[in-house]
């Protein structure tokens, strides 16, 4: 394996972590729309935690190894149009994903408070927090940006 192959392998692994994390958050978002009890919300916390680690590893890995590849390979340059488009899409996905996170963190904070207060029955407030339009919209934009990033990486318009 050449050094460039290692870079590509790490770039692809990072992409798998990034898309994998988006899938985890999608499962989480679909699930929290239907819950109203603190125990149900807290049961989903492991998915939120692993998804949080995966999205950091994936999003940093794709940009670091991607830019490194563009510098290392003679055929591509960092200033190529499709590379710049990829960086813009990455920035959109990162920022919207970062803004979606606190929307769902509110749900877990509330669930912990309710459980600490001994409330185990359904809560209208918890239900409303799970159905946040703002959070779903931000996650939708982040997912769309990641999908377009994949399209851009495969087709490389203008290359």
């Amino acid at each position, binding site marked *: 394996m050449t050094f460039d192959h*290692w870079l*590509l392998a790490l770039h692809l692994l990072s992409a798998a972590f990034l898309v994998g994390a988006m899938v*985890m958050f999608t499962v989480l978002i679909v699930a929290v729309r239907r819950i109203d009890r603190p125990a149900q919300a807290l049961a989903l916390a492991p*998915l939120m935690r692993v998804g949080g680690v995966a999205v950091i590893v994936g999003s940093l890995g794709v940009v670091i190894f991607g830019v490194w590849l563009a510098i290392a390979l003679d055929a591509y340059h960092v200033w190529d149009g499709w590379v710049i488009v990829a960086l813009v899409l990455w920035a959109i996905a990162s920022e919207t994903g970062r803004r979606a996170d606190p929307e769902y963190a509110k749900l877990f904070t509330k669930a912990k408070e309710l459980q600490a207060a001994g409330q185990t029955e359904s809560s209208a407030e918890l239900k409303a927090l799970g159905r946040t339009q703002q959070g779903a919209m931000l996650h939708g934009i982040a997912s769309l940006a990641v999908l377009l990033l994949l399209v851009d990486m495969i087709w490389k318009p203008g290359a």
Partner: protein
Amino acid sequence: MMLAASRPEFPLFLHVLGATVLIGAVASGAILLLASARSEDPAYLRRLGFRTLLFGALPAYIVMRIGAEWMFSKEFGDVKDDPTWIGIGYGTADIGGLVLLVALILSGIAASKSKPGLARLAGVLVALTAVAWLVAVWAMGGKPS
């Protein structure tokens, strides 16, 4: 980047999209099924884990395999000896697909009949497939000879 440069784009897109969604879906399924053992609401997590595998992982696996077969027939259809990385890809896809199917059945039974042991076993199986498929992703990029 190198991978895409010399290949038909659409099958590659299907393959990469299917594979990355598959890894996310099996990882989600594994987390939910394994977490069900320590949860206050285990039945809910078992049900959600099963549905994630059924509606997420299974369709993604089919898309990944269609993309792989399509690319293989175009690029390696006439080649007698496949490169090592193709062997790793097919090996993990075939065995992993079988394990995913077994885990899907086990998690379905665990969800409908409240069997925590089966849910844990299904969780371990899909966690192993997620690791194997990450190795396959590495092989697709690194192309070890």
